[in-house]
């Protein structure tokens, strides 16, 4: 069982590192402030800087809490946590691949065909026992959603470059 103490330590150290990264790199690089700002509280940099300070304080609080060991350990969520192992990591990698491919295919294949592939791929990745039903749902659900969003809600669903639906 992963303990609250170890989680608290990891989160605390992570928050402190994130606060340093924000303060020393991200804010100076990615937040633009006009040169004519006279009051610091009006500057676009002010709020993110305050938040980086709060992040550091939270990190210190988490580390201190973990070292004090005051929190109660609770069991892991069965569905979110182990059993891990190579198969579980492979499935997570598979989901990441499905998401990346979805972003790549949406403008090219269109939303309906991409969604069909997403449904089928996800169902088979999860190891569904209802394979035929999964294929049927993979075809029907995106079509039904297309019908609703395109023809009832008036949303311009991307059609892709190949097969276009009415």
């Amino acid at each position, binding site marked *: 069982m992963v303990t609250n103490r170890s989680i608290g330590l990891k989160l605390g150290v992570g928050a402190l590192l994130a606060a340093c990264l924000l303060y020393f790199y991200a804010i100076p690089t*990615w937040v633009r402030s006009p040169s004519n700002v006279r009051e610091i509280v009006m500057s676009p940099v002010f709020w993110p800087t305050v938040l980086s300070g*709060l992040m550091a304080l939270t990190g210190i*609080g988490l580390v201190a809490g973990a070292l004090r060991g005051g929190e109660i350990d*609770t069991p892991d969520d069965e*569905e*979110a946590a182990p059993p891990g192992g190579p198969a579980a990591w492979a499935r*997570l990698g598979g989901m990441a691949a499905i998401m990346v491919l979805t972003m790549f295919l949406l403008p090219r294949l269109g*939303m309906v065909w991409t969604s069909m592939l997403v449904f089928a791929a996800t169902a088979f990745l*999860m190891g569904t026992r209802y394979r035929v039903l999964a294929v049927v749902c993979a075809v029907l659900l995106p079509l039904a959603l297309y019908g609703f969003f395109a023809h009832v809600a008036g949303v311009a669903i991307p059609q892709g470059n190949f097969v276009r639906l009415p």
Partner: protein
Amino acid sequence: MSMFDSILAGLALVGNVEAFLSLAVGIAVGVIAGAIPGMSATMAVALALPFTFAMQPVNGILLLLGVYKGGIFGGSIPAILIKTPGTPASSATILDGHPMAERGEAGRALGMALYASCTADLVSNLALILFAGWLASFALNFGPPEFFTLILFSLTIIAGVSGESLMRGALSAVLGLLLATVGLDLVYGTNRFTFGDPNLMGGLNFVAVLIGLFAIPEVLALAWHPTGHLGKTRKLGASRASWADYKRCFRSILRGSGIGVFLGSIPGIGAAPAAFLSYSEARRKSKNKANFGKGEIEGVAASEAGNNGVAGATLIPLLALGVPGDVITAIIIGAFMVHGLQPGPMMFVMNIDLIYGLFIGLIVSSVFLLVIGGLAIRGFKFVADIPKRLLVPGVLVLCIYGVFAVNNNIFDVGVMFVMGWVGYAMMRFRVPAAPFLIAFILGPLLEDNFRRAMLMSGSDPSILFRGPITWFFWALTAITVFAIVRAAIRSTRPQGAGAAASGRVS
């Protein structure tokens, strides 16, 4: 015209089949739209607007109000059944509604959501009728400093939804506040964390963040452990919440309704913060504090009362002042104007029959919501019987369509996926998602009002203490923070730990 004459005139206006049919159709459309993730109540009202142009003014406005009220309740259906809030207002309902569904009590959770929604809706409508003038004039006293202190107090909700660790809740909230800074600066229009991408200039889409944070981690959790849910009860269970349940939750429902009415009467706050504040207060006052977040029916009742309490109250500034309380009432103002009506104080003089007609229609809408909502639950609740490894791919596809539909933007789908991984990491590290969401909603409001207050005062911070309203919220914030710190210190003491452990370890 006396009040009795006004009521009679209103009754003459709405005492016909067309008016009640408009209301019923509106509620039905709203419930269906609310139950589809991505099809928010706002979108449904906007889509229904053109249909009202050819209708009688009172019928058209009743139709839109029906869509609004139905949409707010409808969002709770997928929130409970598939952990995907149909509307942002239903985010808090997930916290206890979904665990109840997982425990085989989906019907009970849905039933309580309906009863709480209808009760809060009725309270909200009565508040509109009784306090429209007074509340509207009170809300007029809110400037940026008052809004800042109100939102600062609202951020103390985070403690109520942080679950087992206050510090992890705080970390989650800071992350949410940080994510809310992405986009163009509110005052100077310069880039903040946009990384040169024009898609980020408008900030991150709220619905994409919301669905990514709550729905996608469920998909990833199932990928990690596809058989983890087997053996768990995932049936409908009791199809209705009992009278005993309702009686037990009645205080929380009334309190949530009051919170919803108060926040709804202040323009710009919205239903989601009201739901979270109501949930937090219910948890703070409840005898079953330890069960919150694990499937406590009182949590469902409180959050649904909070968000539905807003529905009638947002019409207070609309009707009394002509100021829209939220995006939906801004759309409804359009319907008034199309029919040549100008909401505001003069409307109570020139169109008193229409005002009372709407009031009567709104009272009836609570009854219609009970009937139509009950039918909708019967229709939707079978979702709980679908095998999870078929349901989850369906949820993923539904999320893709829903998130795209909000802005017609594929980039938002990417934001949803990224937030899904963030949400999954938070789930694995037991960092609660609710504080993140609350902070993401309230962050821009907090910063915006702070800077506007500073602009008003020439950067003099004393403006934040300028009157009784600000003092009141500062005092509330101080008391709440003191209570939170005291409770946190007590919970880490050895003797408290033992007691807490017995109550908290499931």
